[in-house]
């Protein structure tokens, strides 16, 4: 037997010994030692038991060892797998819808948490807290084709966590989609104003204050929100607010640039034109 084989044999013997010595009796389900391929999901360290919130996020599907989902969390995780790994949005949507139907205020299968006492360590909550991940995932898949559905889901997320960043911006995006598909100018203007309201609600959640400016040097933030606002005001023909938002966008990107770096130059170009237009002497009628 070669040295390596001898070593590996010894290792295997040791590993088995350790496993055999691991106490297993009397352990609470969900906290026993995990034996890959042997122990089912309750003892899998990658299967995250609710305590009292569900794990909001994504766990690699192959680690979960779920054959058939049976809880809203499991349906959410499979939906994420369909969406992220398989690019199967049809099945993802179905799973998110199932998850939400099983974790829903309307049928009393979830609840909003309004008190710290409800989430004390090891608290047991019945019904479970409402989850935001399946709602956000489903909403974004519907934001172009069914913006009203998306807006409804985003509103549910704001019920769960009103301070969560980015949700109001998504609502603004959904209203922008409605405006783009509007049948008439009046409806379009109405949707654009709803979008503007949503974007402004987003800005309120991470305000630029004297303290934040002193700490960062930033005179503005939320560059993409300001860019979207400028676009909405442009569609409404509101040059003053468009210019204001373009300036805020430039301030927000001063130290952070943008994923769309060319927007910065475009903003400068447009702002220069707008300023020239806004500061042009007003034509006075002849007397």
């Amino acid at each position, binding site marked *: 037997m070669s040295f390596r084989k001898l070593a590996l044999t010894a290792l295997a013997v040791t590993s088995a010994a350790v496993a055999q010595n691991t106490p297993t009796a009397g352990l609470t389900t969900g906290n026993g030692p995990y034996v890959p391929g042997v122990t089912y999901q309750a003892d899998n360290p990658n299967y995250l038991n609710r305590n009292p919130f569900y794990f909001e996020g994504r766990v690699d599907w192959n680690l979960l060892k779920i054959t058939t989902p049976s809880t809203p969390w499991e349906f959410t995780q499979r939906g994420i797998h369909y969406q992220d790994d398989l690019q199967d949005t049809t099945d993802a949507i179905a799973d998110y819808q199932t998850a939400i139907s099983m974790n829903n205020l309307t049928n009393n299968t979830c609840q909003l948490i309004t008190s710290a006492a409800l989430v004390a360590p090891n608290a047991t909550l019945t019904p479970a807290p409402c989850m935001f991940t399946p709602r956000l995932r489903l909403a974004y898949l519907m934001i172009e084709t069914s913006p009203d559905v998306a807006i409804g889901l985003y509103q549910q997320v704001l019920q769960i966590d009103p301070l969560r960043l980015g949700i109001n911006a998504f609502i603004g995006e959904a209203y922008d989609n409605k405006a783009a598909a509007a049948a008439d100018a009046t409806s379009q203007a109405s949707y654009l104003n709803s979008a503007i309201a949503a974007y402004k609600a987003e800005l309120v959640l991470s305000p630029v*204050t004297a303290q934040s400016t002193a700490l960062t040097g930033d005179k503005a933030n939320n560059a993409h929100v300001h860019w979207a606002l400028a676009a909405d005001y442009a569609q409404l023909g509101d040059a003053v607010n468009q210019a204001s938002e373009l300036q805020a966008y430039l301030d927000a990107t001063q130290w952070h640039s943008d994923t769309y770096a060319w927007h910065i130059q475009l903003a400068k170009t447009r702002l220069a034109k707008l300023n020239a237009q806004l500061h042009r002497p007003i034509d006075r009628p002849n007397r």
Partner: protein
Amino acid sequence: MGVALSAVAQTPTGNGGDVPFKSQPIQQPQSCLPCHQRQYDELRQSVKSGYRNVSPLFNGLETAGNFITGGLLRPVYADSTKLDTNGQPLNSNMFTTSPITDGLQLRAGFCFTCHNANYERLANDPTQREVPEVTTGAASAVGGGFRPDLFRPLRDYHMTDTSGKQILPASIGGYPPSGALPSKGTAGISCDLCHNEGGPDLERSFKGDGFANTSLIINSSIEKVGPFPFPVDVKNNFHIASNDQSKISFLRSSAFCGACHDVRLPGGGPGDLANNEFNVHAPSLPYFRLENLNTEFQTGAYNTPNNPFGKTLRCQDCHMSLFPYSPTSTYTVGNINVTNATPAVFAQNYAAVPGISTDQNYPLPLRQVVDHHFTGTDVPLLSATELQARLGPDYPDPYEPGVDGYGNPLALASRRQKLLEQAARIDATQTDPQAILGQDFTVRVNAVGLSGHRFPAGFSQERTAYIQLSVTDDNGFVLYQSGYRVDKPHPDTGEMAPDGNLDDEDNEHVHVVVDGGQAVPVGSYATGAGNNGSKNLVFELGPDNGPDDRVYSGVDAGLVLFRNELTVIFAPGTPLGRNDANGNPIVPAKPHYEETFNAATANTVDNYRSLQPLVPRQFRYKFTMPTKAELAELGVTLKAPLHVHTQINDEHFPPVFMRYLVKTTGPSGPGGDKQLLTEATIDTYLKTNPNLTSSDVTATLGGAQ
């Protein structure tokens, strides 16, 4: 003295056991040097040995945790008069308690244990104690409570004069006094920790499995456990080379590494809200997984034969072999062709210095030997001068030139870069072949982790690995970018203007400034974040907000960040630590999730943002090309082809995290200046490891221009 020490060492509280060998005090690495020069030289480079105990970052983080917990992370000892949560004596710490049944036992020495278990246990003897107990709790507690102003970083206690007597820097956290020598405990994880092992400590581990938080039986005898089944007798019986096959096999196994390289934190209120795991010995002790490295390995493909090498591999096969300087292997994972260093290739060498180390000079055989560099993701954040002042004049420069006996770089920084280059691959060839003005264009990046654990790993909530992407036309006009950084001022730490350095800049997915806290009058100290820092004074979404958008909303855009995340779930009524536009504190009425940069503040963790081993994932960037009209406004004409460049970068700590430590341990922090980190530390020593792997493709440009 010697007798008392031996007695303590042989019958340690809650550790050790029946060892049929003569006891022996813990040996300094220098005692092993004459016969094991190569191993000594290699280990000297390892950050776990020596550096970690003087690291400004480790010391800063331990200090920050103590500010918040009121000193609970400092060890207690056998003669302590403190009480646990049930009013019983609290006289054992994380290492000397078995089993752990009280959260205060777990917190006592929580950081110190993993980095200095031997000397924490020795400290039950007051004459051997380097790190003293501190008074704990709020100012109203017994003894006046915790005093941030008097609190010294751990490294202050790791100095002696030439007679071996402990000396302290003149000012808290100050430079070593002239003539100061490193204390015995400074060596940290050295020869006499691993080679004194007696197996896994199942009783003390949270799940009874020997995993995490130094769940290791460590003896203190002349029996030294090595990797060889038939060791040669040692000269003059300085030690006995163990023939205990179970100990030898354990030392050679990944389970041995798992005793320390999982770290499980006590869940603080309102509990580990995402993962209901608790100590099997004490169901009232919930925990969550900080470092989850060995669990990742144990549940991953390299712990089975189902990997490109067709055999189960061990931690030692990459971190104690010639890897990453071994011959390469080529294999395919998903659609990605990989040529990488081969694990489990070991050098042939002598295990000890021939001619001086064996009984009767018995000739030593050439063997496959392991390497003790233990190269990982860290490189010291200190100058070579300060390293040598704190750790001895022979401490190596992490950037030193030259090669070792095998022709591989001596410098830890070079070894790290090479190791990280083996850790992942990306492939962008499934990107759309054509872009059309005004329409969506999708870059598809397949990424796979190749390390035995996830990538990044370890303190993975701060290890910042990410994809840098640029899409440009043939003239270099940038159409989309992600994973970029921008040089900017950092007024909160005194950098008032951009400094020309991008390595001190964070990614642009969020803008965060963490509160460093502030001092309160003596007698007013209270535990918790309040005045002790860690809450986010600024928390805004940035333009490259990929991590949250991708995870929670399924958006195919923005930064791909493999860094895991410590999260605080604010319970209703708990202030976020910042104000609204009207100057009023923002107080959530519903639970609110936010990233936090102090584990002591977190109450849950997302350990799934990193790449799991050998399971490719595709990350998509869907963005809109400029319209013809927009290009006209800009006066730009795009030139084909478009160039899509992707690469993975890595930084072992994010600047935002270091800036938090600069402030909380700085002059304006809760305890005054601990002289650990400044903005200059970040600017000088924090280095990005760029371009670990890359992929470039081109796309044609369609549609009317």
